[in-house]
């Protein structure tokens, strides 16, 4: 009647699930979240202009993700709802990045250990811009609900290790154009990357503490990006099919699944 059940040790189960999630995330293109002089900068390699990997959650809180689009978009919406209802019931200042990161850690951890569920193939960053640079916070959340408090930057996606190593060498708390240039250069440390990432494949946003409105999140348009990167990097255009030979890449027919 039912399929025969075999014993699988918890260690093996966790290992298998982690491997599955990692493989999914490794197909995702990278995202950098880093501090700069006036707040927090998000830079993602993203060919879509409308399917965002970086998003606004609340007045001072931003969100970035890699992995399966439908999964992280669900988490993004849940985060916006969580923040909006908390701010409406109490006060806007009662919504914090730490609170949101904790809620995400709970959800991801629960899903990861639920045997009947497939683990989420996502990695998230929640960043909050403070009134002063010392109060800026970047949290990184992995598929199993682990949470890390990052000091200066965090890199997620397939080539996170290489990009992280490259960024660690060049990182300083710099002005926006400089920080952008550093981030874009670090993105090129991806071994799959033949040339620098062009403006047409970049998504960028900032949480800018100098912004007068209470909502500190702003997207940088491609024109703004080009202007900021102009003197530093001429950005040659790349062919859009450069990823086709990545070994673990999903078939081209379903490219939207992994942002």
């Amino acid at each position, binding site marked *: 009647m039912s399929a025969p059940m075999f014993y699988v040790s918890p260690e093996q189960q966790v290992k298998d699930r982690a491997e599955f999630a990692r493989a999914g995330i490794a197909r995702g293109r990278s995202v950098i979240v880093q501090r700069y002089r006036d707040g927090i900068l998000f830079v993602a390699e993203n060919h879509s202009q*409308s399917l*965002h990997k970086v*998003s*606004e*959650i609340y007045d001072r809180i931003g969100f970035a993700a890699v992995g399966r689009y439908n999964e992280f*978009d*669900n988490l993004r*919406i*849940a985060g*916006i*709802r*969580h923040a*909006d*209802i*908390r*701010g*409406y*019931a109490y006060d806007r200042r009662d919504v914090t990045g730490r*609170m949101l990161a*904790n*809620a*995400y850690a*709970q*959800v991801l951890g*629960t*899903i990861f250990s*639920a045997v*009947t*569920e497939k683990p989420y193939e996502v990695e998230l960053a929640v960043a909050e811009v403070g009134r002063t640079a010392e109060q800026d916070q970047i949290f990184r959340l992995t598929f199993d609900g682990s949470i890390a408090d990052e000091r200066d930057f965090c890199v997620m996606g397939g080539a996170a290790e290489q990009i992280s190593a490259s960024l660690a060498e060049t990182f300083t708390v710099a002005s926006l154009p400089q920080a952008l240039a550093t981030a874009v250069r670090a993105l090129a440390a991806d071994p799959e990357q033949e040339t620098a990432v062009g403006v047409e494949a970049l998504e960028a946003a900032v949480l800018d503490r100098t912004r007068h*409105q209470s*909502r500190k999140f702003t997207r940088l348009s491609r024109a703004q990006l080009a202007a900021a990167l102009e003197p530093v990097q001429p950005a040659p255009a790349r062919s859009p099919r450069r990823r086709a030979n990545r070994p673990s890449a999903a078939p081209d027919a379903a490219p939207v699944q992994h942002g």
Partner: protein
Amino acid sequence: MSTSLFLPPSGRPSALERAAADTSSFTEFVARVQPALLPVGGGSGPTADALAPRATTIVALTTAEGVVMAGDRRATMGSMIAQRDIQKVYPADEFSAIGIAGSAGLAVDLVKLFRVELEHYEKIEGAPLTLDGKANRLAAMIRGNLGLALQGFVVVPLFAGWDEQSARGRIFSYDATGGCYEETGFSSVGSGSVFARGALKKLYRPDFNTAKAVQAAVQALFDAADDDSATGGPDLARRIFPVVIAVTASGARQIPEAEVAKVTDKVVASRQRRPDGPEAKL
């Protein structure tokens, strides 16, 4: 409260997915998960409007650059002044403003909810609502208050903003049942609105720039306060002046108090010479 808005403990995404599929509206979402938080809702029983303070006059004018909205600062409870410096005009989002007359407690909460509603939609959808969409959303929220309105807790907003599509300022007025009507030129709500509208009829010019429109708005509020006991005039001793918001293509901004004070001082000075205000040509 913290995790209940996320996935259920089983990790089954069904509830979240269902929720995600059906609404970008904050109000609908709150009504489902925590209805007690909402200011609006049905109500039945005897009228109890004497319990709550009331906010009074709001005016709005379209200009060559967009739209200007202004409100007096008085809230009354019966014949008593409940508050001298209440704020009734707020930016609703970066390109619109809302002013509310009526039951003050509900009105202030409704504004708060409406602002979250607009921002919530924008964040989830990645694009703001159109100006008509915002106006309709507000109409639905007012309609939801009909039960309480019948008991005397009437809330009547005035909504105005910059319309990206037609590149001009537009004004929408409402009734207590949620009827939404677009106004041309200028409009006014609240107990002093009759007098303010009369003043604007004589003062308004469609080619006003923002500065001129601010002057006309302050004049109209002065006339409202002159003839309506529930509308507050400029309080020169305490330096309390109308709240004025201007919305143009570059966004909504509150006119700094110092600027409104200057305009008000001029209006008050001119009224010393001619108490009924500027003379219209026949």
